[in-house]
C-alpha cells in the first residue's frame, strides 16, 4: 500500500481512530497556518496563544469528561448547569462564609462529586437514560444557580482567580523568557524522547519490528520542534505572563485521563461498556459501576470547569455555563468519537476542541461576527462528522484514506500489508 499510509501508520499508529486523529491534527495545523497567514501573524503571537488557552481550557476540560461519557454510550447535557451551580456556590462560600480559596476549590469539587453521584445513581442503578437524567439536571442546576445566586454576579477573591487567569511566577535569572515555562517545555521534550524509546522497547518485546529509526527520529524531531516552538512562544509573552495556570491544569488532566483510558483496566471497561454493554457484562464488567463512575467523573470535571471560568471572569454570573455542553459535545464528535459509543480518544477530543477554538479565535481576529462564526462552526461540525461517516460507508478508512486514494493507482499494490508469508491474508469485512 502507499508509502504515505505507511508513514502515517508509523508516525501515528495504525488503527482507525489514530488515522482519524491524524486527519484532525492535519486539519488543525492547516487551520492554524491559514489563520496565521490571514491574520498577518497574530494567531501564533504569544499573547494570542495564551489567550487561546485561557479562553478554552474549561471547555477542553469538559471535553475530557464528555469523551468518557460518550464512549460509555451516554451523553451529559447538564455540564453547563453543574458548572454554573458549582460556580455560584463556590463564589458565595468565599464571599459570605469567607472560606479560604483552596478550601473553596475542594468544596467545589465535592459539590461536583455529590451532583455526579446523584446523576450517576439514576443512570446506573435505576436505568434512566442519561439524556433524560442530565436534561433534568440541566434544568435543576440552572434553577439552583438562579435560586442561590438570585441571578446576581458575585465576585471572587484574587487568590482564587489564579486557577482561571493566573500565570507562573517569574523565577531565576532574566533570560528574556519566563523561565518556568521553558522548564516545562524542556520536561515535555524529555518526556517525548523517553516515550519514543519506551515505545520502541515495547515493540521489540512484542517481537515486532519497531518502526525504522529514521521514522522515530523524525517523529521526535517534529514533536520536540512543536514543543520548543510552543514553549518559546508561551515564555516570550508580556512580562508576568507565561503558559497559563489553567493550561497547566488542562495538560495535567489530559495526561492523567489519557493514561487512564488507554492503559488501565478501568479505562478499558468504559470502552467495553460503550462498544457492547451486554458483551461487557457477560465478560464480568460491572456495568453499573462503570456508568456511575463516568457520570460522576463528568460532574466533578464540570465543577472544576465552572470554577476555572469563574476564576477567569473574576466573578460568578447567572449566564455562566450557558451552552457549554454543546461546545464540549461538538469537540468530542469532531475528535472522532462515535455517537453510539465505544469509540473515541481523549487526545482526539482535545484536538477537536482545539479546531473549534482556533477557528473561533481566528475568525474573531478577522473581525467576523459571532453570527457568522456560529454558522461556520456548525458547518465544520457537520462536515467533520459527515466525512467520517461517508468514508466508513464507502468501506474506506478515514479522512486520510481519501487523501491517499489518488496515490494508490500509480503504486502497484502488494496483496496485503503483511509481508509474513506464514500469515494468511486477512479475510476482511467483506466475508460471505
Amino acid at each position, binding site marked *: 500500500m*502507499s*508509502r*504515505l499510509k505507511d*508513514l502515517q501508520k508509523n508516525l501515528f499508529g495504525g488503527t482507525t481512530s489514530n488515522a482519524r486523529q491524524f486527519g484532525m491534527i492535519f486539519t488543525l495545523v492547516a487551520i492554524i497556518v491559514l489563520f496565521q497567514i490571514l491574520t498577518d501573524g*497574530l494567531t*501564533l*503571537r*504569544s*499573547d*494570542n496563544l495564551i*489567550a487561546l488557552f*485561557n*479562553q478554552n481550557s474549561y471547555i477542553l476540560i469538559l471535553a475530557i469528561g464528555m469523551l468518557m461519557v460518550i464512549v460509555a454510550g451516554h451523553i451529559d447535557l447538564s455540564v453547563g448547569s453543574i458548572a454554573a451551580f458549582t460556580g455560584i456556590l463556590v463564589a458565595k462560600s468565599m464571599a459570605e462564609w469567607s472560606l479560604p480559596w483552596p478550601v473553596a476549590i475542594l468544596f467545589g469539587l465535592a459539590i461536583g462529586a455529590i451532583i455526579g453521584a446523584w446523576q450517576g445513581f439514576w443512570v446506573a442503578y435505576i436505568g434512566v437514560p442519561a439524556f433524560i437524567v442530565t436534561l433534568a439536571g440541566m434544568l435543576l442546576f440552572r434553577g439552583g444557580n438562579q435560586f442561590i445566586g*438570585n*441571578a*446576581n*454576579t*458575585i*465576585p471572587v477573591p484574587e487568590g482564587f482567580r489564579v486557577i*482561571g*487567569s493566573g500565570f507562573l511566577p517569574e523565577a531565576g535569572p532574566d533570560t*528574556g*523568557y519566563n523561565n518556568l515555562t521553558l522548564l516545562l517545555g524542556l520536561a515535555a521534550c524529555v518526556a517525548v524522547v523517553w516515550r519514543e524509546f519506551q515505545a520502541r522497547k515495547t515493540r521489540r518485546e512484542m517481537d515486532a519490528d519497531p518502526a525504522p529509526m529514521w521514522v522515530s527520529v*523524525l517523529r521526535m*524531531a*517534529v514533536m520536540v*520542534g512543536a514543543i*520548543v*516552538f510552543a514553549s*518559546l*512562544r508561551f515564555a*516570550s*509573552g*508580556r*512580562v*508576568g505572563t507565561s503558559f497559563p495556570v489553567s493550561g497547566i491544569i488542562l495538560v495535567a488532566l489530559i495526561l492523567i485521563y489519557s493514561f487512564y483510558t488507554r492503559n488501565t483496566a478501568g479505562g478499558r471497561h468504559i470502552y467495553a461498556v460503550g462498544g457492547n454493554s451486554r458483551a461487557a457484562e457477560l465478560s464480568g464488567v460491572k456495568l453499573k459501576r462503570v456508568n456511575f463512575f463516568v457520570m460522576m467523573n463528568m460532574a466533578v470535571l464540570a465543577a472544576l470547569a465552572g470554577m476555572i*471560568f469563574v476564576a*477567569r*471572569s*473574576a*466573578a460568578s*454570573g*447567572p*449566564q*455562566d455555563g*450557558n*451552552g*457549554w455542553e454543546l*461546545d464540549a459535545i461538538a469537540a468530542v464528535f469532531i475528535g472522532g468519537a462515535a455517537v453510539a459509543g465505544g469509540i473515541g480518544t481523549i487526545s482526539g477530543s482535545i484536538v477537536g476542541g482545539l479546531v473549534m477554538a482556533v477557528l*473561533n*479565535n481566528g475568525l*474573531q*481576529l478577522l*473581525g467576523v*461576527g*459571532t*453570527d457568522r*462564526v*456560529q454558522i461556520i462552526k456548525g458547518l465544520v461540525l457537520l462536515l467533520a462528522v459527515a466525512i467520517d461517516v461517508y468514508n466508513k460507508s464507502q468501506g474506506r478508512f478515514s479522512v486520510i484514506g481519501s487523501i491517499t486514494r489518488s496515490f494508490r493507482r500509480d*503504486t502497484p499494490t502488494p496483496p496485503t500489508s503483511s509481508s509474513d508469508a506464514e500469515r494468511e491474508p486477512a479475510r476482511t469485512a467483506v466475508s460471505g
Partner: protein
Amino acid sequence: MRNLIGKSVAIGAIAALALTATACGSGRDGDSGGSKGDTKGFAADSLIGVALPSKTSENWVLAGDLFTNGLKEAGFKSDVQYAGASTTVADQQAQITAMVTKGAKVIVIGATDAAQLSTQVAAAHAAGAKVIAYDRLITNTPDLDYYVAFDNFKVGQLQGQALLDGMKAKKPNGPYNIELFSGSPDDNNAGVFFNGAMSVLKPEIDKGNVVVASKQTDVKQTAIQGWKAEGAQARMDQLLTSTYGNKELDGVLSPNDTLARAIITSIKGAGKPVPVVSGQDSEVESVKSIMAGEQYMTINKDTRNLVKQTIAMVKALQAGNTPEVNDTKSYNNGSKVVDTYLLPPVAVTKANAAEAYANDPKLAPLTK
C-alpha cells in the same frame, strides 16, 4: 514516494524549528506596555474595538451600525462585535481579548455581564488600550478608564412620573393598581432604573394612592433574567391569574420597550383592557404601539447621541487630550470612581412623539 514524503516532512520540521528561532527574536513587552504614554495620543488610523452584547434588542444593532460608520468617518479602523446568543459572556471575553491582540487603542464595551470582564479589561489596560464602558458600567476593575451613558436614574424617574401622569389622565382618582417589572439582574443598570422609578412611586405607594396588588415590590421578585420578552410575558400571565381575576390593573412599570410589548401581549391575551405601561429605548414597534394608543410611554435615549459622544471621547484620546466628563463622583464600580459622561434622557408619549423623533429617519414617519 518514500523519499519525497520523508523529505517534505523533514523540511516541514526544519521550517518549524526555523520559525521558532525567529520567534525568539520577538522579546518581551514590559508589564504595563504602552500605557505609560498616557497623554500622548495615538495614530489617527488606529484600530478601535467595540464589543457589544448579543443582538437581542434593536438598540444594540443600531449602536453597532452607528459605531461602524462613525468610526470610519472619523478615520479610524473599527472592529465591532456582538456576543453570541447563548454563550454571551465567554464570547465577549474572547472578543475583547482578540481586540487587544489586534492592537486596538481604545476598546468600547457594552458589557453583557458587568462583573465578569475584569480580567479582559486588565489585559487591555496592560496592553496600553483605553477602555470605555458604554451604556453599562463595568464593575470590580480598577482598569476601566471612562463610562458613558444616559442618566439611568433619571430614566427611572421619568418612567415613574409618566406612569403616574398616565393613570391620572385615564382615571382622575386613585387608588391605582400597578405591577412592577425590572430588568436583568446581571445588568448594572436594571437596578438603577428601578430605584429611579421607585423614588417617584414609593411616596405614592406609602400614601396608599398606588397599590402593588401582588405585593411583589422587591427587585428580586420583579427582575426578568436576560431582559427576555418571554420571561416578562410569563410573569405577567402568572400575575394576571393570581391577582387580577376580578381586579382592575391600572398601570405597569416596565423597564424597556421589549418587555413592555410582552406585558401588553400578555394582558391582551387575557382579554383585559390595556393599562398604562411604561417603556424605554424607542423601539420601532413600541413607537407604533404608542401612536396606536396602547403602550403609554417610552424613553428616547437617542443612541445617536450616545455613540456620537463616545466617538468624541475616542477622538479626544487620539489627540492626546482628556475626554470631557460631567460626573466624577457618582459611579463607583467597586474598585474606583469612574469618570463619567451622562446624557439626559427624554420621556416620550403620544403627545410629544412627533417633536421628539423629528430627527430620527426611522421613527419620524411613524409619528405622522
